[in-house]
C-alpha cells in the first residue's frame, strides 16, 4: 500500500470536487425520446396505447391511440332488434355490464312511452348499484396495484366476488347479465336473495373501511397521488368529464340525483360525494365513498321493495315508434347515454353510444403535459377507464 501524504490527499480531494462540479455544470442536453406505453401494458386495462414524447423524465406530449378493440357497435345495433342490442352493449363496460343496459332500455322506453312497474324499477336500481360496486371495487384495488401496492388488488378481486355472486344469482350471468327488458325485467328475484345481498353489502362496507385505512391512509399512496393530475372543473366539463372524475373536482352533479330517468333513486336517502381538490387522490377518495354509499342505497332499496309485477304490458314483438330520444344514467365510469333514432321499425335506425371513458380519457393529452413518467400511470389509473367503454 503506497503511503499518501496529507498534502497529496488534500490535492486529490480538490481535484475530485473540481471534477464533480465540472460534471454538474455541463448543461444536460437530452434528446427527446418517444416512449410507447402499451398496447399491452398492464396499466392500460386492455389495449390502450399511449405514445409519450419525453424530455428527460418529463412528458412533453402524450397521445392515446385507440381502436385496437373497436367493434363498431353503433353499426351493429342498426341491424339488430331492440332486445338483441342489449346483448351487444353488455360488452361495452364489461365490469358493470348491467349498468350499460339500463340507459338503452330507458331510451327505448321513452320512445315507446312505457314505464316499468315500480318493482322492476327498484330491482333495476338495486342491480345498477350492484354493478357499480362490482366495478368500483376493482378500481380501488387496481389503482393501488398500479402504484406498487400488490395486496389491495387481491382483496378487491376477493370481495368483488360477493357482489358478482349476487348478480349471478338473479341474472344467471356474472359479467353479461342481459337481464333488462323494455318494460321491466326478465325475472323476479330468487328466494333468499335479499338476505344474502344484505350480507354481501355488509362485507363491502368492511372492505371500504379497510381500504380507507390501507390505501387512503397510506403515506406512499398519498405522496404519489396528492396534487397529481389536477383537473379544474371548467376544463373537465369542457372535455366532457363525468362521474366521479368531475365530482372529484368539486362539481356537485350526479345523474342519479339530477337526472329525470325512471329509476328509484329519489325513493331512498343518500348523498352525492364531492371533493374539492381535483387530483388523483380526490378521484380515488370519491369513488371509495361512492361505493360505500351504494351499499346503503342497495340496503334501502331491498328494505322498501314494492310488490307487484315486474313487466309492463309490452307487445311481444317490439316495434319502437318513430322518434328520437336520449337517455343517460350515472354509470360506474360516468355518464353513459344512448341517443336512439327510430323509424318505427324492429331495429333502431341509428344508435349513438355516449360512453363515459371515451370522454374521460380525451382529457389525457391536456392532463399529461409536463408530468413525470411515473405520474402517467397514476393519472391514467385515477381517471379509470375500461377499454371497451372507450372503443365501443
Amino acid at each position: 500500500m503506497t503511503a499518501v501524504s496529507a498534502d497529496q490527499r488534500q490535492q486529490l480531494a480538490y481535484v475530485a470536487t473540481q471534477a464533480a462540479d465540472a460534471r454538474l455544470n455541463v448543461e444536460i442536453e437530452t434528446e427527446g425520446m418517444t416512449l410507447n406505453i402499451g398496447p399491452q401494458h398492464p396499466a392500460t386495462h386492455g389495449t390502450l396505447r399511449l405514445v409519450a414524447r419525453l424530455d428527460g423524465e418529463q412528458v412533453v406530449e402524450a397521445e392515446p391511440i385507440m381502436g385496437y378493440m373497436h367493434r363498431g357497435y353503433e353499426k351493429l345495433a342498426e341491424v339488430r332488434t331492440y332486445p338483441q342490442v342489449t346483448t351487444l352493449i353488455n360488452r361495452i363496460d364489461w365490469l358493470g355490464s348491467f349498468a350499460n343496459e339500463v340507459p338503452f332500455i330507458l331510451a327505448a322506453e321513452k320512445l315507446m312511452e312505457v314505464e316499468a312497474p315500480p318493482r322492476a324499477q327498484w330491482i333495476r336500481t338495486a342491480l345498477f348499484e350492484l354493478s357499480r360496486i362490482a366495478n368500483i371495487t376493482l378500481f380501488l384495488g387496481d389503482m393501488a396495484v398500479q402504484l406498487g401496492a400488490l395486496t389491495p388488488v387481491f382483496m378487491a378481486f376477493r370481495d368483488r366476488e360477493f357482489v358478482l355472486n349476487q348478480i349471478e344469482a338473479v341474472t344467471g350471468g356474472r359479467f353479461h347479465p342481459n337481464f333488462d327488458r323494455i318494460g321491466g325485467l326478465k325475472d323476479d328475484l330468487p328466494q333468499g336473495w335479499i338476505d344474502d345481498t344484505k350480507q354481501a353489502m355488509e362485507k363491502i362496507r368492511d372492505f371500504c373501511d379497510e381500504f380507507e385505512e390501507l390505501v387512503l391512509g397510506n403515506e406512499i399512496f398519498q405522496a404519489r397521488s396528492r396534487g397529481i393530475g389536477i383537473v379544474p372543473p371548467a376544463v373537465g366539463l369542457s372535455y366532457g368529464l363525468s362521474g366521479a372524475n368531475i365530482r372529484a373536482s368539486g362539481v356537485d352533479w350526479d345523474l342519479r340525483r339530477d337526472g329525470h330517468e325512471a329509476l328509484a333513486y329519489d325513493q331512498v336517502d343518500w348523498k352525492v360525494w364531492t371533493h374539492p381538490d381535483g387530483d388523483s387522490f380526490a378521484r380515488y377518495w370519491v369513488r371509495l365513498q361512492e361505493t360505500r354509499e351504494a351499499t346503503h342505497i342497495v340496503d334501502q332499496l331491498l328494505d322498501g321493495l314494492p310488490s307487484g309485477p315486474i313487466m309492463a304490458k309490452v307487445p311481444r314483438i317490439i316495434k319502437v315508434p318513430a322518434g328520437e330520444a336520449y337517455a343517460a344514467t350515472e354509470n360506474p365510469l360516468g355518464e353513459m347515454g344512448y341517443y336512439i333514432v327510430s323509424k318505427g321499425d324492429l331495429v333502431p335506425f341509428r344508435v349513438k353510444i355516449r360512453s363515459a371513458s371515451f370522454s374521460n380519457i380525451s382529457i389525457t393529452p391536456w392532463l399529461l403535459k409536463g408530468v413525470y413518467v411515473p405520474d402517467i400511470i397514476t393519472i391514467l389509473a385515477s381517471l379509470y377507464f375500461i377499454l371497451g367503454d372507450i372503443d365501443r
Partner: protein
Amino acid sequence: MTQLSSTDTDTAAEAGPEPDERREAWAAQLADALGDDFIEHHIIPDSDLWVRVTRESWVDAATAARDQLGCEFFDWLSAIDWLPSPYGRDMDAQEDNPQPKAADPMEQGHAGGQTRFQIVVRLYSTTEHMGLTIKADLPDDDLSVDTLIPVFAGSNWHEREAWEMFGIHFNNHPDLRNIYLPGEFEGNPLRKDFPLLARRVKPWPGIVDVELFPGEEES
C-alpha cells in the same frame, strides 16, 4: 381523515319554473342570440329539447348555449345519416325477403331537416340539470362544418370520430386523423350506404327469437 361531502341530497322537486317552461325559455334565448340562423325547435314535454340551426352559425350556437344557457358540459357530438339503407334492414332471412323493398323516402327526425347528413351535438347544464340537442344540416356537396374545439376542447375526439365514420370535414380542426380505424381504411362505416360485410357474406338466419307463441296474435 376529514369528511368532505356535498350538501345533503335534495330529492324534493326543484323550485322555480317547470322544466318545459325553462326549455321554452332556452329555445327563445337561443333564437334571440342567433336571429335568422335559428331555424326550428322541438320540445317533447318532460323529456327533451331539440334545436336546429344553420351550418354557418354552428359555433355561435354552441357558444351561446354555453355562455347564455349555462350548458358548460360537453356531452357528445356525432352525426346522423338520414338516407334509408339501400340494403334493407339486414334482419330478415333471405327467403323471407326475396325482393328488396322500395326504399322509404328520406325523413328527418325532430326539429326537421333538409339534407342527408345532420351534425348533432348534445350539451348539458350541470346546474340546471337539463340538456339540449343542437342539429345542423350539411349540404351533400360540401360536408363540412367549423370545429367546436375553441368552445369545447372535448369535441376534438368526437369530431375525429364523426370525420372517419361519416366523412364530415371539420374546418380548422388541428388533427383530423382516424381515431378508431386503421389509417389506410377506405370508406365511412356509419354511412347507410356502407355495407355491413358480415351480413353480406353470410345470410342472417332471420328473426328467430321473436316467433309467436301458439295462439298469440301479432300486435
